[in-house]
């Protein structure tokens, strides 16, 4: 817990480094209606408290049609669970951004108005044809949509191993075997089905609640290797991926976590130990989370992990992991303490006490205030929608949280800067420059509630830039690359992730704030290649090509 004088002191220091952010001026404003994203998640609960109802849903933000503007795909729980009729009209929705910056629902005719009981979404160019294909996780068979590049998709998973009748949560793409194409990792949650549904709640009054995941066994995660044409084959046992009752995966980060140049997998498990699969580069992995210090918290305790994010929070060049958890636990920050070793520094960084009352799900690391370090956003919302009837001190809808980084990896909560009134049943969250003005906006989904878009206002004062990659020897989007921006003796680092947060994937690009006139950009590709690009300036979107044929930068649509 931080005392008021210290909070005030830190806040003052932040206003000094970010002069555009006044002490009382919100950093964000709710722009959902203005942008035209009219979507509300519904879980179609029957009152029996079926487990999948309270978990969804996720989203994906990417350029569907290659027009340079970000589009938004939102997942719906449309398939009916027993006892519910569902709603055939309520499907996943695709919102395409127009030239005026407003979004239009273009689901009809796109082929992605999927009607499963949706959980999450991920994307990547699985067949090397230059456009982004879409993978949707469900309670029930997952779906894979091939993109024709013009906003028309074809579902191709049906009948394949991808479409098993299981409960998938987060998914992401990585080149697990270093063959240049994108493979697929799917985290799976519980072995729940209506036939093994149990009563949880107050047996004396008959009041039901959602069960703790301990009541059910987990569902084994899946690694699917791509044959180069977008066809996937499941490889689990021989790949070193665990298959046990403890596999209760929700969150996922795919990146090179131990700085050996090879892609690794981190799975945030709900109430069981988290997994860190260290890659060999040949499609096989070794689970090492316990020894690496990222399986359990400092007390050696398993936590109810939901979302996970990756970033360099203290500027030491190494990736740190932040995880969201249940209330009465804390969220946990595993800070890198040398290559391949992490230490739980949640208490020391000011992130423990502010998180204890809330149930965290989606989480985003990003330089929201453009001061050169990564800040933190957490979407909160209790799992049990009637929790107040069991405990009057808790509530379903909870405040989202924004934490500003002081540059050393210590955080101060600044909810006043979020510009959101009221609490949310928060689930997924993503950072993306949705209005193309050079700063990170926030997209937040709710369980059984509307999606929000919070527009970042900081670009009026300072400038940012975005970087996308075009792989040739590496995978097409450069997933897993480390990108560094150096200026004035300060180096900022980002990892291009295909999965993070909760049930979601943000655009295949990274964002930096740049206060110097120019900077040098260095890309460390998954293939081992290194690209350097000098004379980087704020206000632009750069694309760096691994083969050296980088296109010219594009200035942001909105001037800064």
């Amino acid at each position, binding site marked *: 817990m931080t005392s008021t004088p210290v909070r005030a002191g830190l806040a003052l220091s932040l206003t000094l480094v970010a002069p555009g952010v006044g002490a009382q001026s919100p950093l964000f404003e709710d722009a959902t209606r203005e942008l035209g994203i009219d979507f509300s998640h519904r879980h179609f609960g029957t009152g029996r408290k079926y487990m999948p109802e309270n978990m969804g849903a996720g989203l994906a933000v990417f350029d569907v049609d290659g027009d340079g503007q970000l589009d938004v795909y939102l997942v719906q729980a449309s398939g009916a669970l027993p006892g519910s009729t569902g709603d055939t009209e309520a499907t996943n929705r695709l919102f395409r951004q127009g030239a005026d910056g407003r979004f239009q629902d273009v689901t009809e005719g796109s082929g992605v108005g999927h009607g499963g009981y949706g959980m999450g979404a991920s994307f990547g160019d699985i067949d090397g044809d230059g456009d982004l294909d879409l993978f949707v996780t469900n309670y029930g068979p997952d779906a894979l949509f091939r993109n024709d590049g013009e906003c028309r998709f074809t579902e191709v998973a049906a009948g394949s191993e991808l479409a098993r009748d299981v409960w998938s949560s987060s998914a992401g793409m990585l080149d697990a075997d270093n063959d240049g194409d994108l493979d697929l990792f799917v985290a799976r949650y519980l072995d729940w089905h209506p036939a093994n549904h149990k009563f949880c709640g107050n047996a004396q009054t008959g009041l039901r609640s959602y069960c703790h995941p*301990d009541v059910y066994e987990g569902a084994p995660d899946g690694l699917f290797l791509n044959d180069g044409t977008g066809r996937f084959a499941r490889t689990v046992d021989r790949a070193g991926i665990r298959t046990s009752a403890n596999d209760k995966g929700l969150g996922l980060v795919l990146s090179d976590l131990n700085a050996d140049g090879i892609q690794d997998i981190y799975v945030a498990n709900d109430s069981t130990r988290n997994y860190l699969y260290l890659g060999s580069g040949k499609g096989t992995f070794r689970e090492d989370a316990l020894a690496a210090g990222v399986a359990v918290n400092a007390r050696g305790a398993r936590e109810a992990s939901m979302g996970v994010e990756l970033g360099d929070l203290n500027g030491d060049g190494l990736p740190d992991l932040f995880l969201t958890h249940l209330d009465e636990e804390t969220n946990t920050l595993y800070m890198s303490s040398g290559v391949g070793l992490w230490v*739980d520094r949640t208490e020391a960084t000011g992130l423990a006490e502010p998180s204890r009352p809330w149930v965290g799900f989606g989480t985003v690391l990003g330089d929201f205030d453009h001061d050169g370090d990564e800040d933190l956003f957490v979407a909160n919302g209790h799992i049990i929608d009637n929790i107040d009837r069991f405990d009057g001190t808790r509530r379903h809808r909870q405040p989202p949280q924004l934490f500003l980084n002081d540059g050393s990896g210590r955080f101060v909560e600044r909810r006043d800067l979020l510009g959101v009134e009221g609490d949310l049943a928060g689930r997924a969250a993503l950072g993306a420059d949705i209005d193309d003005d050079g700063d990170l906006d926030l997209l937040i989904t709710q369980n059984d509630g509307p999606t929000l878009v919070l527009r970042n206002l900081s670009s009026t004062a300072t400038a940012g830039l975005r970087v996308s990659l075009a792989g040739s020897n590496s995978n097409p989007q450069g997933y897993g690359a480390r990108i560094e921006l150096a200026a004035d003796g300060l180096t900022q680092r980002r990892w291009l992730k295909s999965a993070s947060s909760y049930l979601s994937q943000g655009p295949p690009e990274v964002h930096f704030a740049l206060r110097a006139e120019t900077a040098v950009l260095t890309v460390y590709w998954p293939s081992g290649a290194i690209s350097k690009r000098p004379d980087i300036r704020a206000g632009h979107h750069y694309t760096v090509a691994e083969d050296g044929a980088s296109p010219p930068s594009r200035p942001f649509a909105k001037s800064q």
Partner: protein
Amino acid sequence: MSRFLLALIIASLTALPAPAQEVGGPEADALNAAVAALVQGDHAAAESQFRAILDRAPQTAEAWLGLSEARRLQGDLDEALEAAQRAGEAAPGLAAAPLTAARVHMDRGAAQPALSELEDVLELDPDSVDALMLISLVLRQLGRIDEAAAGLANAWNRGVRHPAVAEQLSIVRLTQGDPAAALRLAEEGLTLAPGRPTLLLSKGLAKAALTEHRAEAVVPLGEAIHSGLLPEPGRVHLEIGAILVEEGRFAEAIGHLETARDEVGHEPAVHYQLATARRALGQAEEALADLARFEELAGESDADDATRKALGTRLNEAQALAAAERLDEALEAVRALLLQNPDDAPALALEAKILFSLGHRTEAEVSLARARELLPTHAEYHFLAGLFRMYAGLPVEAEKALRRALTLDGSLAEAHALLGGSLAKQGKSEEAIVHFQRALELGIDQPDVRLGYAGALEELGRQSEADEQMKAYRRLTATN
């Protein structure tokens, strides 16, 4: 902050010192000898010596106090209370008399009479630190943390600058989640009593809970350990070790963690922290050994957890059947569970409740007795015992069980309500009123409570208040 450490520090505060005996006058030597016997733990000898003094000089208040203490320590609380009251009669202004009586009431689990005696102490001696400490303790046991804090803060702010007050208030602030205030109080307390171990511990825990001071916590925590007076220093070593690991001071952490391992080696966290520190220092083999031990201990915990959760699910199902009044099926379900786990206390308690509902009261008592034997500190089981006894027409027996329940959990509203009923049945209307009031404060607004409350008020001639309660009773019965 470690919740265990907080519990530890609170536990250390409950061991309050025995009342100071003022010894003087013509029987001084005899009194001193009797007090010495008491202090040495020879309670029977002390008792006979105090009695001898009282035979010679029946108005010696100090001897009555000594006798009270000797009898209290031997478990005869009735006589202890009577002796304390005699001390008060012999010396009406002697604050130690109601203080001693309060201790006896506390031993009986009678919180309200204890508080009443302690208020008498404060009337005689408003700055009595012993009374302030005991009031805080009783209020905390009743779950009235905010009142405990307010009383201590009031004393502290009006100038009762005693280290015990600072210590107690600092701990209360920690439990209230206000480590900044806890730190301030601990530091002020340490200016009055430098090196006082519990204050050092409180200071360390408060710093550990404050992000900007967390790294500094190792100093006061280390000093607290060096006092040699902490009941379980191993746990404090673990706390220090964890902070040092967090700060990347791995080599320093190892020493603390090894000491913690020697003292609380059954804690998985010790081995986990040791593994982290050793791995960071490149001691790969030792780190693996620590991790293996962690796995072994945590694995045991996981297995225990899994078994407990499986039991919990089946118990939940049995409870659901009972709630649906499918009592025979519920009994069958819980007995099936008990066949596999005969020592599962919650299952035994549920069996007792079902049997009681089916009218098999003797069998119900047997199951409940076993549950209480297995989990003697579980308040609900004592409450159930009180309930069964009330139904059996045994209010005195019920009172004992309910007092025990409330000693364990002062916020058990149902137990307050039932105790009110038991006391009212025995004609103890004044005390009954206190418990009815408390039950209402805690949210149990049932017709029976209002009716019992009204009856007790009427018994005391407080007719208009009784009428109010009857109105409330009628309102509830009308809506129910």
